[in-house]
């Protein structure tokens, strides 16, 4: 009798919900010209200057459009995945305009979160650096405007180099021997602070050798991390995380922040750091005794292709104020406000001419703009990449090699297998 009741209850349940829930299509047909425009921007450690620039843009925007208010919410970078997932699942809680990381783009677009942008009527858009604009595209369609970029270059300690009579490396192959020599002569120092989880430091080594993470054939990706060129790059990078340069016990678990932290603490002679690390290095024991050069490439005088990280501004698909959202995006991402953001936060602009301008006024930026202009590269633009990143495929591969658990050939082959599984699922 009880069993029957239970079966009945389960039966009713099965009829009520015979498939997991899905929210409906998010695109709305309306395009209102007044009301409140909701904007999500990322919170920063020191948000004041950013907020001031954004407020300026808002008052300019509200001055042009009567009856429109702009409401900005600052969201945490660390919980962005949950916030955006929630926004996509429930359009009512979603903003109209949002700032987001360019590596998240493909996943957000396939989740149906952002709408395609038409930049053809926006004059300034033709000055956007093409390789940076590419980071805002999926399958040739543009879904965001690059707001700022971040690239990494080689930081080195000028005092150590002078003391030992050394010069910064001019080719990628020189880095390991140079770092080894420094550690030999100054055993308390790490030759170059590299990290087993520092994907964006490892990628230039792979790209400089002509390798790729994955190759795209008409939108269908296949892993290329196990190609001969990629393996050469992986070998070059993992060589750095050895006891005679950067001991695995210290370095294997490090990501970007921890790698730069060792340099800040004065424990490393070199590291790979971004233009965005400048302020924190200037507030450390390495302040005033460091220099920056572009990470050298395979041949003398060349620059290793850097990863073009950065944030985009985009318009959400569910917005009910499409025109206003587009206009606000173009205003905040305009040359004028990118310049202001550079002055306030040190964010590198995404327009060729504005980049040149700021580099001329600030010598520190030269290695970074030089890196940008010699061509940057990006991670595979596919939603599968978000999965590969969440599953820590590449860091695990690097760590397996530096701990000796697997050799380069096996580790890259296994990583390629996992990636291909993600690409085809």
């Amino acid at each position, binding site marked *: *009798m*009880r069993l029957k*009741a239970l079966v009945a*209850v*389960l039966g009713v*349940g099965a009829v009520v*919900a015979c*498939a*997991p*829930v*899905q*929210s*409906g*299509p*998010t695109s709305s047909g309306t395009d209102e010209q007044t009301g409140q425009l909701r904007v999500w921007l990322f919170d920063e450690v020191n948000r004041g200057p950013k907020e001031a620039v954004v407020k300026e843009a808002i008052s300019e925007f509200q001055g042009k459009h009567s009856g429109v208010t702009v409401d900005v919410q600052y969201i945490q970078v660390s919980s962005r*995945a949950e916030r955006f*997932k929630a926004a*996509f*699942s429930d359009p009512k809680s979603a903003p109209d305009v949002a700032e987001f990381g360019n590596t998240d783009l493909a*996943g957000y677009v*396939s*989740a*149906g*979160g952002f709408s395609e942008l038409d930049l053809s009527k926006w004059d300034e858009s033709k000055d956007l650096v093409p390789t940076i604009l590419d980071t805002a595209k999926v399958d040739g369609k543009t879904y965001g405007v690059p707001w700022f970029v971040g690239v990494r270059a080689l930081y080195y300690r000028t005092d150590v180099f002078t003391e030992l009579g050394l010069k910064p490396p001019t080719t990628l192959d020189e880095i390991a021997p140079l770092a080894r020599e420094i550690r030999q002569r100054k055993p308390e120092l790490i030759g170059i602070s590299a990290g*087993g989880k520092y994907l964006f430091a490892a990628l230039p080594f792979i790209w400089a050798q002509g390798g790729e993470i994955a190759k795209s054939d008409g939108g269908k990706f296949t892993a290329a991390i196990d190609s001969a060129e990629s393996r050469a790059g992986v070998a070059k990078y993992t060589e750095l995380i050895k006891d005679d340069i950067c001991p*695995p*016990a*210290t370095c*294997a*678990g490090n990501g970007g922040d921890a790698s730069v932290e060792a340099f800040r603490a004065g424990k490393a002679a070199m590291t790979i750091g971004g233009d965005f690390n400048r302020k924190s290095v200037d507030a450390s024991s390495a302040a005033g005794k460091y220099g920056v050069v572009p990470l050298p490439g395979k041949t003398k005088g060349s620059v290793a292709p850097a990863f073009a990280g950065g944030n985009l501004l985009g318009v959400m698909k569910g917005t009910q104020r499409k025109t206003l959202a587009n206009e606000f995006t173009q205003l905040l991402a305009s040359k004028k406000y990118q310049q202001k953001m550079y002055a306030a936060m040190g964010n590198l602009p995404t327009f060729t001419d504005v980049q040149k301008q700021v580099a001329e006024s600030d010598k520190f930026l030269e290695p970074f703009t030089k890196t940008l202009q010699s061509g940057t590269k990006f991670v595979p633009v596919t*939603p599968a990449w*978000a*999965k590969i990143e*969440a*599953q*820590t495929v590449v860091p*695990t591969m690097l*760590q*397996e090699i530096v*701990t000796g*658990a697997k050799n380069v050939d096996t580790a890259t082959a296994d990583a390629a297998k996992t990636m291909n599984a993600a690409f085809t*699922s």
Partner: protein
Amino acid sequence: MTAKGQGRTAFAYLAPALLVLGGLLAYPIYQLVLISLYDYGQEQVSGGAPLEFLGLGNYQNLLGNQQFWGVLGQTVAFAAVCVVGTLLVGAFLAILATRVRTWVRMTLFLAALGAWSTPAVAGSTIWLFLFDANFGFVNEVLGIQGFSWTFDKWTAFGLVAAQVIWCSFPFVMVTLFAGIKAIPGEVLEAAALDGASAFRTAWSVTLPLLKPIILVVTIQSIIWDFKVFTQIYVMTNGGGIAGRNLVLNVYAYQQAFAASEYGLGAAIGVVMTVLLLGITMFYLRALRRSGEVL
């Protein structure tokens, strides 16, 4: 009243409890099983892609994965060490507490409550500070600055196990202490009059009387330690170097939820539920066979 009528009355009395259980337990489990049968990612949740029924595809995928079996074995061994450690430390301190003076006992309880009430994330972080390679107090005392506890697979597991035991022994200690205190004095007195030694009293009188309580704390510990997430996630930075410190829960998070593969994640959840139910049933049956009334 007929037998049928009696059954009906009994059912009516049980109905409210059944409803609550159904709402809080059966429905979520039903949803979990349902989701585990679909290819259910972020695209499907937000309506960007159609649902695809996979049947047992997610399970096939999971059970055919070598890493899953490795992680499962690791989880079982890790949980076993934590359970045994927790019970031993808890029992030892509970007995100690019955034998010492009041102020010592108070101090012991306060210290244990402190460990118990520390949030897992805070506790893990504090332990990491204590065992930091360069600035940690422990390395300073031992004179081994620069030694990384979290790099090697086994020292990392050992450190996390110690932290888990540290934050879960107070429950065992307090429960067992209450149990020991609840044993009537007459029973122990009778044993003493019969000339039983202290060991004999503990083995043949105290322990059998404590059995139901030990049963509860053991099952609790097994379930808790099998599901450890925070300590591994925080202390080994998401599963250790090259993922060699992964346990099932962290693995499920990393492979499935962080990667928005909710179908696969649900499948891992179902497997974990089945495993835990199995362990608990096995344990209960073993106890029943040994003559315990449950």
